[in-house]
């Protein structure tokens, strides 16, 4: 395993080292120590690496990740795994706002809670949150799945497109055009797979499904008051 002391060697050296690794590298296991809340840790990785960050991170950790498995053994700052393309990002603690924003693929697992706007504008990513999510989560979510094992805050799924939302606990309120939908067997199976990938032993039958009513997809003056 490669151990990288971020405090001693610096952010540029870290990301340059990670970017230099191609898909056939044997140097796949990395440990980053002394992150001390630094921003942009392990961003733009494009290789099947296994990276563990020992401590909490600042903004945009694992941003635009492709292929790598990145674990934060601590809490993550805003925008963790933003625009992730593929791979897996695991946060052992809590995640700040915009977790998984605009993510296009891969799986983001948050073992603790996620703050507001979790999964904002998500475009295909799967997000599994073991705890609660804050207000405006899945705002304008276009595609992918958001699983919330705890409670969801206000205006869940506001202006939602085709993303699927699963919540086990309470939902404080639904956003514009977001409705509860029938949980059919295929959704239970999908959720079961998501929970397995999210390292979560929750029972899929305890969840409710939410999605778009698709009433605001096209302009209609009679819907103007919905916003």
């Amino acid at each position: 395993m490669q151990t990288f002391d971020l405090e001693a060697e610096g952010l540029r050296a870290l990301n340059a080292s990670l970017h230099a690794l191609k898909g056939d590298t044997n140097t796949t296991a990395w440990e980053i120590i002394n992150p001390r809340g630094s921003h942009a840790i392990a961003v733009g990785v494009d290789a099947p690496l296994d990276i563990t960050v020992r401590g909490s991170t600042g903004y945009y950790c694992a941003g635009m990740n492709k292929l790598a498995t990145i674990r934060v053994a601590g809490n993550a700052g805003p925008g963790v795994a933003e625009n992730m393309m593929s791979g897996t990002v695991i946060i052992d603690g809590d995640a700040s706002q915009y977790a998984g924003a605009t993510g296009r693929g891969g799986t983001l697992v948050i073992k603790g809670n996620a703050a507001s706007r979790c999964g904002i504008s998500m475009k295909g990513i799967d997000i599994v949150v073991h705890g609660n999510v804050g207000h405006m989560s899945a705002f304008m979510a276009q595609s992918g799945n958001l699983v919330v094992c705890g409670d969801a805050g206000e205006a869940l799924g506001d202006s939602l497109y085709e993303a699927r939302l699963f919540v086990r606990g309470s939902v404080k309120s639904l956003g514009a055009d977001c409705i509860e939908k029938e949980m059919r067997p295929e959704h239970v199976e999908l959720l079961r797979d998501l929970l397995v990938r999210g390292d979560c032993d929750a029972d899929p039958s305890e969840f409710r499904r939410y999605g778009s009513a698709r009433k605001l997809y096209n302009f209609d003056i009679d819907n103007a008051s919905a916003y």
Partner: protein
Amino acid sequence: MNDHSPKIPQTLPRQSATFTNEINSEIRRAAATGIYDIRGGGAKRRVPHFDDLLFLGASVSRYPLEGYREKCTTNVTLGTRFAKKPIELAIPVTIAGMSFGALSGAAKEALGRGATLAGTSTTTGDGGMTEEERGHSKTLVYQVLPSRYGMNPDDLRRADAIEVVVGQGAKPGGGGMLLGQKITDRVAEMRTLPKGIDQRSACRHPDWTGPDDLEIKILELREITGWEKPIYVKIGGTRPYYDTTLAVKAGADVVVLDGMQGGTAATQDVFIEHVGIPTLACIRPAVQALQDMGLHREVQLIVSGGIRTGADVAKAMALGADAVAIGTAAMVALGDNDPHWEAEYQKLGTTAGAYDDWHEGRDPAGITTQDPDLAARLDPIAAGRRLRNYLSVLTLEAQTIARACGHNSLHNLEPEDLCALTVEAAAMARLPLAGTNWIPGAGGY
């Protein structure tokens, strides 16, 4: 009661200057539909502009350069502050961001071809990067917009520069709009949206708010791209002194400043005409901000919004811009609003020169459409050549003016070369009114 006898001279019918025929027609349209008017383009109202400025030229106090013999350089380097690979352009006129989706694939290709032939850059838009434009653009600027449609690290790395779009002049504070007629299979796939919906982009970025966050966002983009690419920050013309200051403090290599005449693919007419300030009013405060930070020319300023002629290019640069960007003018050069299609414009209830329903996708010129039959009307090779020719004329015209003012580089043009024709333009551009030494607002009066 008035006497309408034929023997009595009659007062001519008087139209209201407040309730004009145009205003009344909009009231009737609104009453019939219950929804605001949506259109493309920039502000159409008359505002103080470059036409209200004049160059003084050379005489006894300054001597000119020979128009056909002495060199006047036009090249510009953008991104010299932090980027390892600044971009080098042969001319200081760039092509502004316009999306695939708003424009056809052939139109994007034509923009790339024309820009490349002229030695300048073109820019993606709110829809991601297409192969057409990457393949035909030697220098391509990749926009990072609030929607993040099509955003991915591979395209970030394929780009020559990155432009974080905070706002644009036509709709500062507003997001993009693309109606269902233009959300075809390909556009829908690129944007990860259902086909045929009315797409309304976000106006705020999903993962940052405010200048402190922007600084970190720029750091992330630099780290992903190895600090190679120049990072632009594009702002709409609202509070140019403060917005320029904050963009630079956030780490921008280049500030792109777009006045209210700058176009959009589609938004509300009321937004276009009533939010934001004219391009002319933007430039001096932005340059002042750069000068106050000691970074004028180190952080480059690109000005856009209503650039039409080489005179406009020269005036923007004399006021302190390093380069300009064109959007609407580039579309016209490709063939937009060409009288050749007048009969079809008439069928759409408009006329050549006034057509602005770009969002409807029925563009007779085949530029602002996703209809394959209409799009096939635009030959990207021929249109690219027209754009190249137009860019060449802009450059030659600007050089003509610069030489007449005694400068061997467009970048040596300066405010002292200019005067203003109106008090308003003098105040906005901080120039003396022609024939006087009076700069309104300067010196406390």
